[in-house]
């Protein structure tokens, strides 16, 4: 009898307490279906989206592509970058893997916002804005994926990347998708940009919000860059003109103010960083003595180009690292490495229009004027280029000087088909060889990470890496 009572007691104790022990809920996280349920959570998700985008432009896009080009070099021991610098990278590159992953995270968060926001209660304008931002960031993500891993039409092309447009909740067989064609990937970028242009507001409540988040002008600016990559010169010129004529934006004088002041009129889209979200550009370039890592420096030849004209304001934003005997850019100089990062700025619009006009060929004076606008702001004289060919060369050179450290050069060289001829005698301060050359055209795209190719066996590795 006693036994029975005790056994009953056991069962009772078990039932009463096990709920307490088993029915636990996370405290710092919420279930996916509770994530985006109203305007304020949707806004939180959009902010989370930018938080992830910060991981794309903290330094990854800029440093990886500049080290791949003739702008910057890796001078310490981080061989993920050394291999890129020496044109010998392999698919075990963790930095490339990180960039690849965070780009798709941006895509997934955008997909969630695009799928959920139409179903929530809220003002149509607010919802459109949130959707527009998600389309814009997704466009940006696929644009980066396309140019890093797929190539650039007319420059060097392999296939496009896997496109995923629905929120991920679990995993389905369709997630093991093959690569799309390069055209399909770029078409996705265009489609998202046009949708974003339609949905985004013209302006926001204050300057910080206007710079920190895309507006219609931002969509136009990225469309200008997009059509430049597509060699659709008319559209590139047209969208660049729309931004240039937008009185809220201008070329900021003096040049260094673009970087010394946050959210200037130069910026069309500027990612905001603070002590909690550290951008890493300064850290890579600044010497150890100034609490940087000092692992990336300008190629000596680039430094000489930048300072050839003593008046060039851009050459003045350099300094010497006396420990490593190399030069670095001082565009980003806030201690704690918390500088904002401008993703698209006004000078690019002028240079896009200059290039588009040059290629169209009917308004070469206009092209030279745009080029000179950028040169004048930098404090140097007008260009002497006059013919189409001269202008092409001058614009490419100008883009290099203007966007030192900002990650344009590598793609400019591929886009214009000059990578194999320009990247032939690249001298590194630390390399064991006197110079390095890009000899394999197939290395104009980066490798997909090993882990992705092993996981998704339908995804074909780029030809140089298989």
């Amino acid at each position, binding site marked *: 009898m006693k*036994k029975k009572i005790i056994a009953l007691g*056991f069962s009772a104790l*078990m039932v009463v307490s*096990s709920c*307490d*022990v088993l*029915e*636990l*809920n996370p*405290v*710092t*996280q*919420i*279930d*996916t*279906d509770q*994530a985006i349920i109203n305007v304020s959570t949707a806004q*939180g*998700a959009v902010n*989370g989206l930018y*938080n992830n985008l910060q991981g794309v432009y903290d330094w990854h896009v800029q440093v990886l592509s500049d080290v791949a080009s003739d702008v910057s070099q890796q001078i*310490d*021991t981080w061989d993920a970058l050394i291999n890129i610098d020496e044109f*010998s*990278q*392999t698919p*075990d590159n*963790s930095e490339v*893997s*990180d960039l*690849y*992953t*965070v780009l798709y*995270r941006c*895509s*997934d968060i955008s997909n969630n916002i695009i799928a959920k926001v139409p179903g929530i209660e809220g003002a149509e304008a607010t919802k459109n804005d949130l959707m527009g931002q998600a389309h814009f960031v997704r466009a940006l993500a696929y644009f980066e994926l396309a140019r890093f891993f797929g190539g650039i039409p007319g420059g060097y092309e392999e296939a496009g990347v896997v496109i*995923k447009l629905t929120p991920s*909740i679990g*995993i389905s067989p369709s997630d093991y*998708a093959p690569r799309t064609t390069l055209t399909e990937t770029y078409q996705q970028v265009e489609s998202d940009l046009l949708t974003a242009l339609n949905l985004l507001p013209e302006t926001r409540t204050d300057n910080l919000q206007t710079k920190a988040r895309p507006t219609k002008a931002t969509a136009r600016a990225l469309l200008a860059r997009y059509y430049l990559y597509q060699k659709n010169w008319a559209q590139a010129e047209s969208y660049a003109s729309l931004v240039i004529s937008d009185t809220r934006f201008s070329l900021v004088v003096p040049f260094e103010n673009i970087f010394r002041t946050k959210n200037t009129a130069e910026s069309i889209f500027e990612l*905001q960083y603070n002590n909690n*979200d550290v951008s890493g550009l300064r850290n890579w370039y*600044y010497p*150890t*003595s*100034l*609490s940087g*890592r000092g*692992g990336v420096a300008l190629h000596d030849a680039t430094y000489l180009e930048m300072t050839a004209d003593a008046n060039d304001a851009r050459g003045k934003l350099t300094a010497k690292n006396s*420990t*490593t005997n190399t030069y670095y850019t001082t565009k980003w100089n806030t*201690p*704690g490495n918390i500088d904002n990062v401008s993703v698209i700025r006004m000078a690019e619009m002028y240079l896009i229009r200059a290039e588009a006009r040059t290629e169209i060929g009917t308004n070469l004076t206009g092209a030279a004027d745009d080029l000179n606008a950028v040169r004048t702001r930098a404090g140097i004289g007008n260009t002497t280029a006059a013919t189409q060919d001269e202008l092409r060369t001058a614009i490419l050179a100008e883009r290099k000087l203007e966007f030192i450290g900002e990650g344009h050069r590598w793609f400019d060289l591929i886009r214009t088909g000059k990578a194999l001829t320009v990247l032939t005698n690249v001298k590194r301060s630390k390399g*064991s*060889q*006197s110079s390095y050359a890009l000899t394999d055209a197939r290395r104009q795209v980066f490798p997909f990470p090993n*882990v*992705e190719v092993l*996981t998704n066996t339908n*995804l074909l590795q780029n030809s140089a890496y298989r």
Partner: protein
Amino acid sequence: MQKYVLLIFAMFFMARVGWGQEKTVTGTVRSFSDNESLPGVNVTIKGTTMGTTTASDGTYTVKFTQENAVLIFSFIGFATKEVEVGNQTVIDVSLEDDIQQLGEVIVVGYGEQDRRTLTSAISKVSAAEIRDVPTPNTSQLIQGRAAGVLVSANSGEPGTGALVRVRGSTSINASSDPLYVIDGIPIVSANLARTTFGQATSPIADLNPADIESIEILKDASATAIYGARAANGVILITTKRGATSRPKISINTYAGTSTAWRDPNDLRVDGPTFEKLQNEAAANNYMDTHSGSLAGFTAPYANPDDAIDTNWMDQIFQDGALFNLDANVSGGTEKVKYLVSGNRYKQEGLIKPTNFERTSGRANLDFMVSDKIKLGTSIFYSTTVRNRVQNGNNINGALTNAFFYPSNIPIYEADGVTYKRPVFENPVAVVKETQYKMVTDRLIGNIFADWEITPGLIFKTSWSLDNNYVTEDQYSNSKTTTGGGVNGSGSSSVTQDLNWINENILSYQFERSGKHKFNFLLGNTLQKNTNTQVVATGQQYPGDNFTKISSAAITTSRADMTQWGIASLFGRINYNYADKYLFTTNMRYDGSSRFGANNRWGFFPSASAGWVMSNEQFMDDVNAVSELKLRVSYGVTGNQSGIANFASRGLWGGQRGGLVGGGGTVPINTTTQAAAYGDFPGFNPIQLANPDLKWETTSQFDIGFDLGLFEDKVRVTFDYYNKQTKDLLLNVPVPRSTGYNVLVQNYGEMENKGVELAVKASAIAKESLTWDIGFNISQNKNLVKKIAAPFPQFTRDYIRVQEGFPLYSFWAHEQIGVDPQTGNAIWNTGTDDVFDPNVDRFIVGNAWPDFIGGLTNDLRYKNFDLTAFFQFSVGNEIFNYNRFFYEHGGERTTGYSSQQLDRWQKPGDVTDVPRMARINYNSNLRPSRHIEDGSYLRLKNLNIGYTLPKTISNKLGMSNLRLYVAGQNLLTFTKYSGLDPEVSADAAELIQGVDYAVMPQPRIWMGGVNITF
């Protein structure tokens, strides 16, 4: 029932012997070893059940009528002694310890069992085997002493974690660590340090080894299944000492010693002039390679290598470490109350400045009888450990890391007295002098229990326990360091609390039928809840180097987290024993865990085992050599739920940035601690994919073995073969990253562990003045990943790869077959074609698993001298010497070299595996397999030589026993491994084993001590 039987027997005997004249004998019974009087000793007249027990002062009076009577003195733990009475009226007796009988009780899950009727595979390590071993970490005490248990310290840092594997690894992403249970309380054993710098700490180091009575390692499913869902990796039961009926006994043990590096780190050092010559050689070779073999126009980077300065970084960071231990306990008791109170202070300095480990602990174990039927007891343990740590391991700010990275041709200090700074790397002198890293753990393990004997044989036990870990960590790098330099100091402080409460209720019933059928039933339930909270603050910009607390910092960040898990269980066991010949045990456990999906929350884990004691069969009576022969077989299912996130089954969004670190491998996405805010705008983001079907990892284990005793158990052999099959692995299955995630925790994949274990104990000589006991064990485990979704890489540069058909911890590298003696260039395995392509020609080359592990111990006693020599070995394990990847850089880096570079090819005809120093052989995209080395070793792990003063002298000093000893650890090491120590793990992650990268080596310790008993 029992009483009846006894009574009948007694009457029968009484009737037979008849009646005689009554005699009276008195006397005192003492313990031979310490001359203490022994209360409670049974004194019986041989051939009868009559007799008495000794009083609390050890005295007895016995009356009897038999002629030629023989008195039998018996007491648990002592050899039974028979004395012929003859004409004596006073018989004083001293009883000797019965080593064999002491070893007979084996602690099992929720109980104890006689070794002879045990049907499962359990290894026992007793207090005597592990006394005076200088290690703070109890798990390292069992290294080499239990067959089938692999223990390998992560590093020589005192208080560090260790790899402990009972019969292999059953899991990939969940933990493969065993469950630790101390006095019935499942305790926290996984690292609680927030910042590991590649080196985990072990909460097991909080325990005081001197408190331990025995350690039982439950290995097969029959032994472990009673722990159900947490038993797949084996269970380590730790039982602490408790008081016995005796007068108060005081026991004090103290030792002090010093530790040094057993292999001189300078052996791996390259001096300043040699560094410059090597750099010149590489430059010259590279110049020739690009200038058609000519050196015309070549300028060496270093003009005068012979004039180079020579900084010895090793001497700057290494130290001889002091070691000190004092433990004392008082124990005793009466029939009603028994107690043991102990205290311990342990301090050990590491080999690298300024590391040290200090533990201060206290324990109170009490048992008191409230009535004849009810016993109440407590086991309360409190300890404070203080660790001063230094960064090392897989970390570019480490002390040893940079003692290699910093070339020897640069000075320690700049002209202004500040440590010299190279880009990226922290000056090793700055690491040891200008950074602080302190971790303090306060731990309370407390337990209150009650035993109620409801009727004879029916016992109810309830137990309430707490394991509270309170960890504070403070880190600070001042403005003289690279980390803190540009920001005027950089620091962090954190508080972590890991709180477990456990309730356990057990009903057991033991009875016999007709003297031959013995039954033992057990039924119980347990509930456990864990709550982990953490608060972290970081700071930068301190007003000066004297300010090290964040309250002075100008820029601060902070965060607070909290998470929980719980488990609820029902379990039962039936033991059946027929005439001590046929034994049968079955265990069942039903577990529910908060970690699993709503669809699969509960799991059932059964096991069964059987034993046949052949030596108790009649047909064995004539085989005199065999004193015991028992065949055992068991099969059962156990589970694993540890090591996965608390809410792994749920799709989650969170307020912390979901990010990856260094390529990510299969570390789930939510590894960052930054808020997912955008500037000042609050945000959140996806963290985890949902898997509502998530459930236990299940391991089925088959075990067959035998226990053999020869020559009256002078030789005892235990042999086991096991086959462990794990399915539904809790696997971070890589998913296409195009989904925005890198992994989904799934029950996918299969793992196999098969092995054999052999343990032999022999009493080679057992004479009064000379005894020699030998213990030997050897075991083999073959681990195999049988099925996973897709192979995936781990560790930086994808050096480790998990792939079907290979064991875990396999290394993935460019297979270097040799060096061409003519050209000096590396020869590579080129795969299917003749061209070496670093993109694709990578292969699995070796793994970290040993082929065999084991230990050999010799205990010698000659008169008052004793000697224990314990050897431990590991054969066939490979070590990936990642140091060589960095420090054998062939001139491709500007950082320092290690001495292995000196073996480079220099001229045609040289035979070596270190190729010619030129870019072609050292390009940074190469992952050469020559860095994967044979890590086999044999160690004289412990040597202890003692002298016990004769009783006459110690008694005069007021002591009952006094022993002096000298001891040593790691005195001899035989290995071909070229690094500082073959026992290494450079990374805190479970899947990364056998990697050596700037790991603090195991120390060689010399020490002296004294054991005193009052």
